[in-house]
């Protein structure tokens, strides 16, 4: 393959070659996908851990574009346990949405394709390998087993139909067999009430534009939860909302999740929202998972320089700093990824191994994993040495440590009180 120039310039000949190659690859994938009457045995699988609702296993989802192949999701592995919330963070373009769209088989086709890896979905009595599930079968999984709440509820609701009709339609589609119109309407009203819409009969007859942003988001949530899905994907569900409305919606999501015992995959770039909602956190950078662990692991003991940078660059109420930390440099070009640690060109804590290949995952505890050479045994002491961190990062680490200690002291205090 001809070496691409740094600035991404392509000669006419190179461009035509890429297009031809893309067509060939895409056709192959599409042919597989569109097959009819595929026996279930072809996409049945078993969960590696039956307590998981979803297992992403070395997932690769690429876009075959005219300017080259975009490695949007480039070997992502993590699982979503049943009944838990997993937060996925990372800056825009790092592959959060494409990861979740892969689980729904909603990646924009034909140029977007799951090229390798597995997504195992737990259906209770059996498990499916989503990348192999044929199109027709996927229909019944979307909405019933996995459902999605998007960032902008206005674009996901149809402006010309009444709210009631739209929710009715979803219920009829997934759960309407043998039900009369009245019965379906009754379910819709219940669903609207469940998400805290007071005037549910009135809202049933309204059009989307007659509702506020927060109300529209409630309707979206009612629609996605109407069929008690096992997995809820919430992609920036509150980014377009005010903090006060955001607080209401987060509260609502948390309560509903517990009521139907489903799992949430929560995608957001707001670390505050993650801290509040998530049991587990996955940090993504340039299409890969760079760190994962429990919320406590990630917030009190962040290990990857990128996670630390993200946390230090967020202003926090009550924490006064002169200057905010800003991670130097920018994300590498997704068409032309380096063959070393993707974060190296921005990293201020490199060690000599960073010159080598992309770092593998290192376990820091049963729950906490990081892909960074600083945690090789011989660098461990160095990795934890505050003097080797940029000043703003050190400040942030100190603040989090103090917070952790205070919380622990506080918890111990209230335990003692209880014993009295």
């Amino acid at each position, binding site marked *: 393959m001809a070496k691409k120039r740094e600035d991404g310039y392509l000669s006419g000949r190179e461009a035509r070659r890429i297009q031809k190659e893309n067509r060939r690859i895409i056709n192959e994938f599409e042919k597989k996908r569109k097959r009819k009457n595929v026996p279930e045995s072809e996409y049945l699988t078993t969960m590696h851990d039956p307590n998981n609702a979803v297992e992403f296993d070395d997932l690769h989802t690429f876009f075959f574009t005219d300017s080259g192949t975009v490695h949007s999701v480039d070997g992502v592995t993590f699982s979503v346990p049943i009944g838990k919330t997993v937060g996925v963070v990372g800056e825009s373009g790092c592959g959060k949405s494409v990861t979740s769209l892969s689980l729904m088989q909603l990646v924009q086709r034909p140029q977007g394709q799951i090229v390798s890896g597995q997504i195992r979905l737990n259906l209770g009595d059996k498990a499916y390998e989503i990348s192999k599930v044929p199109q027709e079968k996927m229909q019944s999984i979307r909405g019933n087993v996995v459902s999605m709440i998007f960032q902008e509820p206005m674009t996901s609701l149809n402006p010309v139909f009444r709210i009631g009709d739209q929710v009715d339609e979803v219920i009829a589609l997934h759960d309407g067999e043998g039900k009369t119109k009245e019965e379906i309407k009754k379910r819709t009203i219940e669903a609207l009430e469940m998400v805290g819409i007071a005037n549910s009969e009135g809202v049933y007859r309204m059009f989307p534009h007659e509702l506020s942003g927060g109300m529209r988001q409630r309707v979206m949530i009612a629609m996605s939860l109407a069929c008690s899905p096992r997995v809820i994907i919430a992609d920036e569900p509150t980014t377009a909302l005010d*903090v006060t409305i955001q607080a209401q919606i987060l509260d609502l999501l948390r309560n509903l999740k517990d009521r139907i015992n489903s799992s949430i995959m929560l995608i957001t770039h707001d670390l505050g929202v993650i801290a509040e909602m998530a049991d587990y956190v996955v940090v993504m950078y340039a299409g890969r998972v760079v760190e994962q662990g429990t919320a406590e692991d990630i917030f009190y003991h962040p290990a990857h320089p990128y996670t630390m940078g993200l946390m230090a660059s967020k202003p926090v109420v009550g924490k006064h700093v002169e200057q*905010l930390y800003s991670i130097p440099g920018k994300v590498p070009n997704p068409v032309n990824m380096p063959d070393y640690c993707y974060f190296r060109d921005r990293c201020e804590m490199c060690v000599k191994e960073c010159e080598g290949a992309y770092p593998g995952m290192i376990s820091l505890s049963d729950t906490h994993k990081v892909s960074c050479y600083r945690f090789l045994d011989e660098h461990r002491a160095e990795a934890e040495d505050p003097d080797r961190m940029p000043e703003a990062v050190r400040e942030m680490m100190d603040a989090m440590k103090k917070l952790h200690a205070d919380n622990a002291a506080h918890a111990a205090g209230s335990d003692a009180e209880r014993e009295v």
Partner: protein
Amino acid sequence: MADDYILQVKDLKKYFPIKGGMLSRVVGQVKAVDGVTFNLKRGQTMGLVGESGCGKTTTGRVILRLYKEKTGGDVLFEGKEVYDLNAKQMRDMRTQMQIIFQDPFSSLSPRLPVGEIIGEAVREHGLVTKAEYDDYVDKVMDDCGLQSFQKERYPHEFSGGQRQRICIARALALNPKFVVCDEPVSALDVSIQAQIINLLKELQEKRGLTYLFISHDLSVVEHISDMVGVMYLGNLVEYGRKEDIFDHPAHPYTKALFSAIPVPDPSSKMKRIVLEGSIPSPANPPSGCKFHTRCKNCMKRCMEEAPVQKEIAPGHYVVCHLYDN
């Protein structure tokens, strides 16, 4: 003493007519800004916070006289009423007061190269001689973290953060004294946000700028402001030094707003006052105190009588009946 203040805003009002019926008659009014009073010292930053639709942007725009008229109140810039200036005086005033918009994508003309976007108004206002022009534009770009070779490029070739730098450069090229920053970082990623906030602070120090900084992100406002104002349905319900507002919030709305901020600490899950319902329509605001429909402390008089601004500590103003005595 009044000279200390670059901007004095007194009982400012801006209503928009609601037209309806066949003859497009005025059938009502949206009271977007309904009595806003504050003073701002030179070189300081006033943060303006509140839920969407509460009138933050409109406040910024009326102050800059971006509407033909205001409905009531005074806007004194360096002691002079902005709405009394004639066309020629207003032209000069335009260079001294600038605005940076929320959306760096739609506020830049896609057909002009960046150098022209930044320099256009500089030439129009004859701020520098022809000979100095090129160097001047380079210097402004450099101050804003842009490189001069990028002059020939078009906005679509830049990332979100870079486009916001272009917007900042365009505003600062006119060498203003006062800049309204309307949600300048809301559309950007956290890591890019930090760069832009640092840049705005650095430029403020270098050039002695005064900012009105509008944002719904309270942590950003706390970081950048000296003074903070909290708006609800067109009213400034609380206003004072940042320390007063954040350490001793007094108005029930301010308290609810602050408790809704998610903090990046997994053990602090849920210790908040969740506000019920959403903001009422500014076309038909509640009687008495406009916040009474959502207020936990609502008393009988709150429904009938609108509270007035009171100074509860030096420089800390609140509009709420709880502080009547």
